């Protein structure tokens, strides 16, 4: 039996190696998406079985005889020992957001290979390790948060940097995801109607769950799902109606203003009325769609149309500017390594883990599952013809504002596409145009629609599936906007409460409105900046988001390294130091290039200088807009500089702590809660 087991693992490892070899070396023909699926699944299996289990057994020495915080501090609310598969589902639903879907679609401009390799290798050696180590650390420390652990293990600076990084990520994240929605819905009456309909549907669900059928959340969510599906069908009729279509045909700036107003109102409303019901609905839709996409890819196993590499690895890409290194590695954060996960791993999850060994499938395993979501997004983007992919994702400022100019530019890159081809595609999905739909969501929706339509319904259903995919993306993006604004408001109130006591009170409505307005103004500013940006906004905002997310991962891995150092000395440092060194290199390079690159499309300062020069030679026409773009470029450069300083500070502080421990001048006490034997019975799980 043992020999059979070993042979099986040799077979899985060989399949991973062959599939990775195939996607890396097969050239000159379209490769099938199943190669990516096999490469990913077999690599994850080997990574989990050998690396994850090695860390669990040898490094963390997970011990099921030790009571977890869920058992010791059990209170029926936060702390509750829960079945490991339920915690896994809960954790996966919490970490899976728009990041692993949008990032790979954008990075597909380099071809499928760089992003795919980074998603697989990054997740196995970096992302899953980070999530697992932080989850373990939090379990052994009574479910403490990342900020608390940063303060205890590294110092006050670490704690403060973690807090500041979270705030910065939140503001940039909210702006960038709002921009993704704006770009997906701009000039699309069908999409706008469907998304607008989700709001009264969520309100109805809120009332249903509170007053009509209290506590029947699954029932209410099913009702919401039926109504949302109906609204997608109704959206087609609205788009075809000459009286209604203009009402729902809104410009990018109009949508941005609507989303800013929505963000303000939604985060000031009681959570049970809008946020919570929509969150329930979006969670179930998200899990369902991810499952459907996985089955669809297996069933259809489409061929990838994008090549392994495109010419844009040299940094001249239209989707976003910058070479494959470092920009591929900050564009795909969630899906490979995401610092934000460390907040979840040190949030709800450690308080639900019943046995220490469950941390491996939950921490390490969930990240691998999210990484697979990113692989599916990569497949969905790469099944599009390259010309179509670039026509959808390239901003008008790069390829030209009219369709003729856009197809000429894109075809000149070696990716032929025609105006009639794009017009037919737009007609098929019920849109007036698909040119310059930047942000990743529309091209992901197109790819998903093709896969779903080929799985069932045929071409007649492509329009429905396209808008279903847009609805799915917008639904949880709006939930993130609403919840993020609320959390930002709490953080701000907490801070301002030190200056003025009433401002800190969450029940004082003027304070609530004032702080909500401040948070909305912060992300709203960047959203408007993105809408006005001649390069489409994604070019400047997504790298900022990626850099700030990887900064948080740097903090998490510094904490992990400190803990491993205290537990084992130098012996296992490489486990966290390897991904840490890579992330620091990537974050530094990307941030440095975004500030100082002499190429205006990459460097914020170079862009500002170029526009300044143009302003001096041009007349007054458009001067105010250009000045605003110049100011924004300099502001983005300043934000990048702050992120760079924060990475330097947290790293320097950590190195100081590590050197002290290694020299023996600093106490290396492991700050775990004392051992208490577990008394949980198997039937309690």
């Amino acid at each position, binding site marked *: 039996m043992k020999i059979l087991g070993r042979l099986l693992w040799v077979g899985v490892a060989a399949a991973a190696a062959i599939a990775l070899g195939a996607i890396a070396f097969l050239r000159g023909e379209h490769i099938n998406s199943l190669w990516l699926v096999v490469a990913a699944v077999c690599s994850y299996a080997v990574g989990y079985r050998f690396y994850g289990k090695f860390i669990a057994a040898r490094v963390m020495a997970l011990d099921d005889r030790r009571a977890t915080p869920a058992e010791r501090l059990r209170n029926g609310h936060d702390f509750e020992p829960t079945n490991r*598969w339920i915690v896994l589902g809960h954790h996966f639903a919490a970490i899976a957001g728009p990041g692993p879907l949008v990032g790979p679609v954008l990075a597909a401009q380099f071809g499928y290979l760089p992003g795919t390799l980074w998603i697989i290798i990054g997740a196995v050696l970096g992302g899953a390790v980070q999530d697992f180590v932080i989850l373990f650390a939090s379990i052994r420390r009574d479910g403490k948060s990342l900020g608390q652990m940063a303060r205890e293990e590294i110092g006050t600076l670490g704690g403060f940097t973690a807090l500041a990084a*979270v705030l910065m990520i939140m503001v940039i*994240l909210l702006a960038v995801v709002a921009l993704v929605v704006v770009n997906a819905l701009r000039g699309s009456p069908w999409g706008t109607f469907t998304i607008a309909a989700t709001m009264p549907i969520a309100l109805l669900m809120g009332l249903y769950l509170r007053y009509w059928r209290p506590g029947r959340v699954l029932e209410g969510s099913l009702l919401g799902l039926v109504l949302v599906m109906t609204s997608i069908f109704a959206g087609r009729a609205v788009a075809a109606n000459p009286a209604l279509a203009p009402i729902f045909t809104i410009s990018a700036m109009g949508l941005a203003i609507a989303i800013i107003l929505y963000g303000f109102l939604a985060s000031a409303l009681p959570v049970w009325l809008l946020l919570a019901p929509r969150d*329930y609905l979006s969670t179930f839709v998200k899990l369902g769609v991810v499952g459907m996409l996985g089955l669809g890819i297996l069933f259809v196993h489409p061929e990838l149309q994008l090549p392994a590499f495109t010419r844009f690895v040299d940094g001249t890409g239209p989707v976003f500017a910058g070479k494959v290194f470092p920009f591929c590695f900050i564009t795909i*954060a969630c899906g490979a390594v995401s610092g934000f996960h460390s907040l979840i791993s040190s949030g709800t999850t450690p308080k639900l883990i019943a046995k220490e060994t469950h941390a491996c499938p939950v921490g390490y395993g969930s990240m691998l599952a999210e990484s697979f979501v990113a692989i599916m997004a990569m497949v969905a983007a790469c099944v599009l013809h390259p010309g179509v992919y670039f026509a959808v994702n390239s901003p008008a400022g790069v390829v030209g504002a009219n369709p003729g100019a856009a197809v000429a530019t894109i075809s000149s890159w070696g990716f032929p596409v025609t105006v009639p081809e794009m017009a037919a595609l737009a007609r098929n999905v019920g849109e007036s145009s698909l040119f310059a739909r930047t942000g990743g969501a529309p091209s992901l929706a197109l790819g998903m629609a093709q896969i779903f339509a080929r799985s069932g319904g045929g071409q007649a259903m492509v329009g429905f599936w396209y808008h279903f995919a847009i609805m799915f993306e917008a639904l949880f993006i709006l939930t993130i906007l609403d919840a993020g604004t609320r*959390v930002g408001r709490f953080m701000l109130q907490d801070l301002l409460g030190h200056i003025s006591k009433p401002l800190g009170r969450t029940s004082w409505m003027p304070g609530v409105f004032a702080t909500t307005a401040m948070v909305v103004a912060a992300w709203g500013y960047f959203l408007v900046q993105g809408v006005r940006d001649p390069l489409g906004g994604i070019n400047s905002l997504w790298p900022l988001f990626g850099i700030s997310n990887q900064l948080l991962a740097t903090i998490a891995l510094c904490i992990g390294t400190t803990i491993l150092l205290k537990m084992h000395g130098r012996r296992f440092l490489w486990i966290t130091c390897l991904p840490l060194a890579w992330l620091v290199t990537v974050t530094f390079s990307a941030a440095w290039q975004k500030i100082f690159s002499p190429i205006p499309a990459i460097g914020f300062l170079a862009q500002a200088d170029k526009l300044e020069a143009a302003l001096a030679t041009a007349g007054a026409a458009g001067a105010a807009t250009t000045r605003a773009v110049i100011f924004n470029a300099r502001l983005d450069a300043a934000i990048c500089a702050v992120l760079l300083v924060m990475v330097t500070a947290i790293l320097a502080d950590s190195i100081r702590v590590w050197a002290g421990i290694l020299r023996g001048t600093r106490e290396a006490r492991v700050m775990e809660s004392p051992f208490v034997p577990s008394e949980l019975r198997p039937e309690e799980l």
Partner: protein
Amino acid sequence: MSRLRRAIGILWAVLRELADESAYQRYLQRHGRAHCGAEWRRFSEERLRAKYARAKCC
């Protein structure tokens, strides 16, 4: 067959956990109370306040 039943059971339990229905059952058991609208609202308010004080992942 029993494995399939178990898998469906786990999936159902995950959905109930995500819907906060299991947490509500635990709340009722812990406090020795019976389900009613007011009880759900009390539970839900406390639960949602804690839930939405934390950032949602990207």
